[in-house]
């Protein structure tokens, strides 16, 4: 070919320098072809260069499966640097679905017995991420031996590898239980991390093992207490919290052990309370530990006082300036709201304040939470706040807010007057974001509230006179005016005493009919309303007759049909009108 062989840095530089996708693709394909050729020839001097280039190409997103055999060849090599790259390539390019996967077994088996701890570590790492069920079963004995006897770094890796073994072959848990019992006595954090992880995995998969380790709860609790209290080991602490990852791991294990068991949960109450009150939350690390504590408290059967503490901690999180903490707190509270409703009521004001959060996702969660907190006792104040939110919120939030409010108003309304007022306000502010059945439900509601008809019809008339664009409101208003229009002339002590002429009412309905903003259903309602008014109003009905006549030649079939029918009523059945 004549081109010099590229080194990896060279290849990277060239790819970076490629101006277009096409140039890059060509470069990569040429390199792939060269590597394929080199692998086929099998040059013993080639070393790791081809595979490292191939891994880079794989990172870019191009297929690199032809490198699999090269990986296997390299990892069987006696030289450490080749083995290392071979194992790395296997981790990135191989998985259980590939045929070449089975060939790993022998190499891993040999390397697990290798004198060098580095090589053993590599093999354990590979088994831990790629091992199939069969391989795990074959090699579990080796892994167990290494977890018990080998020098420290290898033991840690063996424990981590055992996690994968247990996942693939759950029946092998028995093999590792004795080791875990011993390792729990360890003081070194590196071992504890892996051990706790292994115990958690085993307990999640087998009830017998779970029962066995329930006895170990005092040890775990002791460990947690020591971590909290022990001042600090410089090496492990992050911003004043000693080894937050280990604490989180221990808390997760306690959660698994305590779920469903009264007695075990009781044993951990004190420590959970201690961790919950003593952890520093000025930095993310402390907050992570506190969050895990809250999750544990709410998952196990803890004392009621402790649960209230957990809710209060979440309430405090809501006030934090860190938006991550607020997000996590809102999500958790949303999950807890049904179980801990009474404890959450204390934090209503904070939740309502979160409605003004700059992050839309948090606003949505705060809305859902506020709606869940509504109850008969707080409906008036909460509805007030939510209506305020509805007025100013972004359009995307209006539908859920409106439908939530309408549902809540139906469930908790103290009286009909309040209910109707609230629904009217929702319709006014939500514009067209009202749920589909909102209009029909309101109509049904109004129909049933006989004594309030004068008040309702006046309010709706007023709202319609201001603005004829929001369709749900217009529909309800036109229906109402059609039904109770005669009451407009009556005086009503609850609404302002405005004189409404019949002519004005008709003019308004005409406006609605003729406006280009009105949808066909709205027009249909307006037409019917006019027709109804022809029986209810005292004045002349010629105006109504004229309007109805015009619509007899409307393009919309529904309207045309109605208009023609109503016209027929005027012409042929006028004698049936009841005397006014």
């Amino acid at each position, binding site marked *: 070919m004549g081109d010099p062989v590229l080194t*990896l840095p060279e290849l*990277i530089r060239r790819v970076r320098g490629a101006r277009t996708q096409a140039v890059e693709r060509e470069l990569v394909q040429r390199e792939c072809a060269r590597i394929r050729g080199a692998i086929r020839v099998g040059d013993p001097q080639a070393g790791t260069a081809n595979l*490292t280039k191939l891994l880079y190409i794989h990172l870019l997103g191009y297929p690199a499966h032809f490198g699999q055999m090269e990986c296997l060849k390299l990892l069987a090599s006696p030289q450490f640097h080749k083995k290392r790259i071979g194992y*790395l390539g296997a981790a990135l390019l191989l998985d259980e679905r590939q045929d070449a996967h089975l060939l790993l077994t022998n190499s891993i088996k040999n390397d697990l017995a290798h004198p060098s701890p580095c090589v053993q570590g590599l093999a354990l790492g590979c088994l831990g991420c790629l091992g199939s069920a069969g391989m795990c079963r074959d090699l579990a004995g080796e892994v167990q031996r290494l977890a018990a006897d080998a020098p420290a770094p290898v033991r*840690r890796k063996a424990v981590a590898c055992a*996690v994968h073994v247990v996942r693939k072959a759950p029946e092998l848990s028995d093999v590792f239980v004795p080791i875990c019992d011993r390792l729990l006595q360890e003081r070194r954090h590196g071992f504890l*991390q892996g051990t706790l992880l292994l115990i958690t995995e085993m307990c999640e998969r087998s009830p017998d093992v779970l029962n066995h380790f329930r006895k170990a709860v005092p040890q775990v609790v002791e460990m947690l207490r020591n971590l909290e209290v022990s001042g600090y080991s410089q090496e492990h602490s992050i911003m004043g919290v000693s080894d937050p990852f280990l604490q989180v791991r221990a808390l997760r294990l306690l959660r698994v052990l305590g779920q469903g068991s009264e007695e075990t949960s009781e044993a951990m109450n004190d420590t959970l309370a201690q961790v919950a009150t003593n952890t520093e939350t000025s930095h993310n*690390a402390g907050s992570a530990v506190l969050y*895990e504590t809250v999750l544990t408290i709410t998952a196990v059967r803890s004392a009621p006082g402790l649960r209230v503490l957990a809710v209060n901690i979440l309430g405090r999180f809501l006030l934090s300036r860190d938006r991550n903490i607020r997000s996590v707190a809102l999500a958790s509270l949303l999950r807890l709201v049904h179980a801990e409703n009474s404890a959450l009521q204390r934090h209503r004001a904070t939740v309502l304040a979160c409605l003004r959060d700059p992050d839309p*996702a948090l606003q949505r969660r705060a809305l859902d939470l506020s709606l869940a907190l509504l109850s008969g006792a707080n409906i008036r104040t909460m509805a007030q706040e939510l209506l305020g939110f509805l007025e100013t919120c972004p359009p995307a939030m209006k539908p859920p807010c409106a439908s939530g409010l309408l549902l809540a108003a139906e469930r908790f309304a103290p009286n009909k007057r309040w209910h109707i007022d609230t629904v009217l306000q929702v319709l006014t502010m939500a514009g067209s974001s009202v749920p589909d059945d909102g209009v029909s439900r309101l109509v049904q509601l109004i129909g049933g509230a006989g004594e309030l008809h004068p008040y309702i019809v006046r309010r709706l008339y007023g709202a319609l006179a201001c603005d004829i664009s929001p369709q749900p409101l217009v529909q309800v208003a036109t229906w109402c005016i059609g039904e109770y229009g005669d009451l407009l002339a009556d005086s009503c002590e609850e609404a302002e005493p405005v004189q409404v002429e019949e002519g004005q009412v008709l003019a308004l309905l005409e406006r609605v009919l003729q406006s280009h903003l009105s949808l066909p259903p709205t027009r249909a309602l307006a037409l019917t309303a006019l027709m109804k008014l022809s029986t209810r109003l005292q004045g002349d009905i010629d105006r109504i007759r004229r309007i109805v006549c015009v619509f007899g030649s409307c393009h919309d079939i529904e309207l045309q049909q109605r208009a023609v029918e109503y016209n027929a009523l005027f012409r042929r059945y006028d004698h049936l009108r009841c005397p006014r």
Partner: protein
Amino acid sequence: MWQKYSSCLPASCNKETISETNRKMIKFFLMVNKQGQTRLSRYYEHVEIHKRTMLEAEVIKNCLSRSREQCSFIEYKDFKLVYRQYAALFIVVGINETENEMAVYELIHNFVEVLDRYFSRVSELDIMFNLDRVHIILDEMVLNGCIVETNKNRILAPLFVLDKMAES
């Protein structure tokens, strides 16, 4: 002792079952720059290669469209994304719904601190030209989707051994 159990298992036990897949706490670990170029990718669950590029592009698009006021946790499909931005590089980790997001947020920072210590003020170019070493660091910290080590000295110990071997 475990051979006797192999007969009572279903024949299709070679592939991962769904329950096993969902147990992986961390699903993937990505470092992507603002232009959408992936600098590091490690998947702990199998994802087809053409789906990977799509996933990476979508994920970076999601992260770039977030403003400063929005939190670092994104609900994406049926799992969560935790991301952190360091200069022009985004580190994005996909996690299970049950995992503690804040601990993973801390893990990302821990990872960057380890890189900083090894490379002395790490930059994007350091990561690009030393991909195999970055992989070694990541593999020390996260094995098969679980956090296994977070102590900087223990994570870097094998690398220092390797460097010494390479020198000699």
